[in-house]
């Protein structure tokens, strides 16, 4: 949009011209994800994950709306209504497995999308707003996923709801009343289940709205690219359509292959067996874990085992867990290096690899039982997580001597193909 050489929408058919005058929706699409959006020509496969996230949201919306036609949000029948979907509703088993595994795959592609942004400096000026809106989407996704996991009303649903709302109970003075208010009672029950269902249905549409803002904000500076160098001219870009629609089409095929492989051949692999036991307020599962995509944060929560002065460990854990996400909002101002792409930042690159390993370790520990050595490992890993963003990154961005940048995207592309 902001590139003067972008293709201009010029409908040929009279009907399209008429529509363009009355409601320029095709023009909007053309400029947003059509031939009217010039995109750097050198994007690699990591740039597929934005579109894939959108596809995953689409799958979740469609399957979710359908599941809501058969699901009953009442503690007495919720569990049985899910089994009704699995056994009696036509293709119900497929729709429910598609939704349950769809949530996992949504997080997989979004995590890859986020780490792509972290490595290639997509959070830096002039794309701070894209990054901030992306984080808002991520927070909304987490809330939606958590509430969705409560709906089947199995053991993990119930105890997950109890534990997570219990986090709010850690807030001094007002914590208890807030927890009661969130649940509409003293423990998760019909009131909680019904409001979680209502919000679980609402939030995906809010996510879709914020995604529109996210894309809008992206189109003002245009897409980042693996060199991190600004687009200099028409030779640096290709139109989104057909070039990136074709590439995303291929990416979507690969995504669907993996997703359907899981859906049809290992649909419960990423779930927890305890959620096939109906909720029982009188019996806690031996070891409560959230869904895998929350494990890194769950590990940070559990890493705080000692009270510090007057602050109880529980509150520290809650603060740290929220801080671990909130600190990402400040990232554009913590990393002051003028170079975006990690490819040209030797020290940053090393620490980035460490961060990826660190988050994987945190994830592993979050899924493991709360016993040694996992607690100690997660303490170390959580310490690195905070140190990476709050201490190392600002220092590295100041001290590091970046490699020489290419003058333009085209130069980088030609240099690469010259080597090959």
């Amino acid at each position: 949009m902001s590139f003067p050489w972008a293709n201009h929408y010029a409908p040929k058919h009279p009907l399209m011209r008429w529509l363009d005058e009355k409601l320029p929706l095709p023009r909007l699409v053309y400029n947003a994800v059509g031939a009217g959006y010039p995109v750097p020509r050198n994007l690699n496969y990591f740039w597929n994950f934005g579109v894939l996230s959108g596809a995953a949201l689409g799958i979740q919306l469609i399957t979710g709306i359908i599941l809501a036609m058969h699901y009953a949000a009442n503690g007495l029948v919720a569990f049985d209504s899910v089994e009704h979907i699995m056994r009696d509703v036509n293709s119900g088993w497929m729709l429910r497995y598609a939704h349950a595994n769809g949530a996992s795959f949504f997080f997989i592609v979004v995590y890859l999308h986020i780490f792509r942004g972290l490595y290639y400096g997509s959070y830096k000026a002039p794309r701070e707003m894209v990054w901030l809106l992306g984080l808002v989407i991520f927070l909304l996704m987490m809330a939606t996923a958590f509430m969705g996991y409560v709906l089947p009303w199995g053991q993990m649903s119930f105890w997950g709801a109890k534990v997570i709302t219990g986090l709010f109970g850690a807030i001094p003075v007002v914590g208890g009343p807030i927890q009661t208010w969130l649940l509409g009672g003293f423990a998760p029950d019909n009131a909680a289940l019904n409001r979680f269902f209502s919000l679980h249905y609402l939030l995906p549409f809010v996510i879709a709205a914020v995604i529109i803002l996210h894309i809008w904000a992206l189109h003002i500076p245009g897409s980042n690219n693996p060199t991190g160098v600004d687009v200099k001219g028409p030779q640096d870009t290709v139109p989104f359509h057909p070039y990136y629609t074709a590439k995303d089409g291929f990416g979507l095929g690969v995504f669907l292959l993996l997703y359907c492989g899981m859906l049809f051949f290992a649909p419960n692999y990423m779930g927890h067996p305890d959620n096939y036991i109906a909720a029982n307020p009188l019996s806690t599962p031996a070891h409560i874990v959230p869904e895998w995509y929350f494990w890194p944060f769950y590990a940070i929560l559990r890493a705080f085992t000692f009270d510090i002065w007057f602050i109880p460990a529980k509150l520290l854990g809650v603060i740290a867990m929220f801080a671990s996400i909130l600190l990402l909002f400040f990232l554009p101002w913590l990393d002051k290096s003028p170079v975006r792409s990690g490819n040209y930042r030797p020290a940053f690159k090393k620490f980035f690899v460490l961060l990826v390993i660190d988050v994987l370790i945190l994830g592993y520990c979050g899924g493991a039982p709360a016993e040694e050595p996992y607690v100690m490992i997660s303490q170390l890993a959580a310490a690195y997580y905070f140190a990476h963003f709050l201490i190392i990154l600002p220092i590295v961005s100041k001290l590091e001597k970046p490699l020489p940048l290419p003058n333009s995207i085209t130069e980088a592309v030609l240099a690469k193909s010259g080597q090959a």
Partner: protein
Amino acid sequence: MATLEHSETPGEVAGDGVRRRDFINIAAVSFAGVGAATVLLPLINQMNPSADVLALASIEVDLAAIKEGQAIKTIFRKQPLFVRHLTAAEIAAADKVDAASLRDPQTLEQRTLAGKKQWLITMGVCTHLGCVPLGAGEGEVKGEFGGYFCPCHGSHYDTAARIRKGPAPKNLEVPVYKFASDTVVQVG
């Protein structure tokens, strides 16, 4: 997909051979389209009755307890079903009418099973706008013709549940049923 804007792009594609190779783009898009259309089938079919609903699409009614002159209201496919044990007088009243003169011409024979003329089994759904007619319950108004009476808009049905007066266009519907034994009817 087929319209590549080569003039706009860097690294121009060689002029000849492009059209032929467009085939692969068309094939890919068409193939994906077929897939998307196939996915629609289960998404639409999920709204059809589920297995537990279909399992109740056929019911058995025990007639043993229904005395002559009595009727019962039961539920068939979530709608009222009237099972009526006609008296000899009611049968005679129904047979006396010239079927050809009726709005929906049918004889009692056509509306019951052979040899089981005394068992009148109909849906309890008025053919006008779907209200439940009176007359099956003990002490309910049976209308001017001694059969059923729909209070919504005043449709009168006779002892063969045929429409005789009022706005309803058709006789009360007779569902598919058969006698599983002398006293048990399987409806649906």
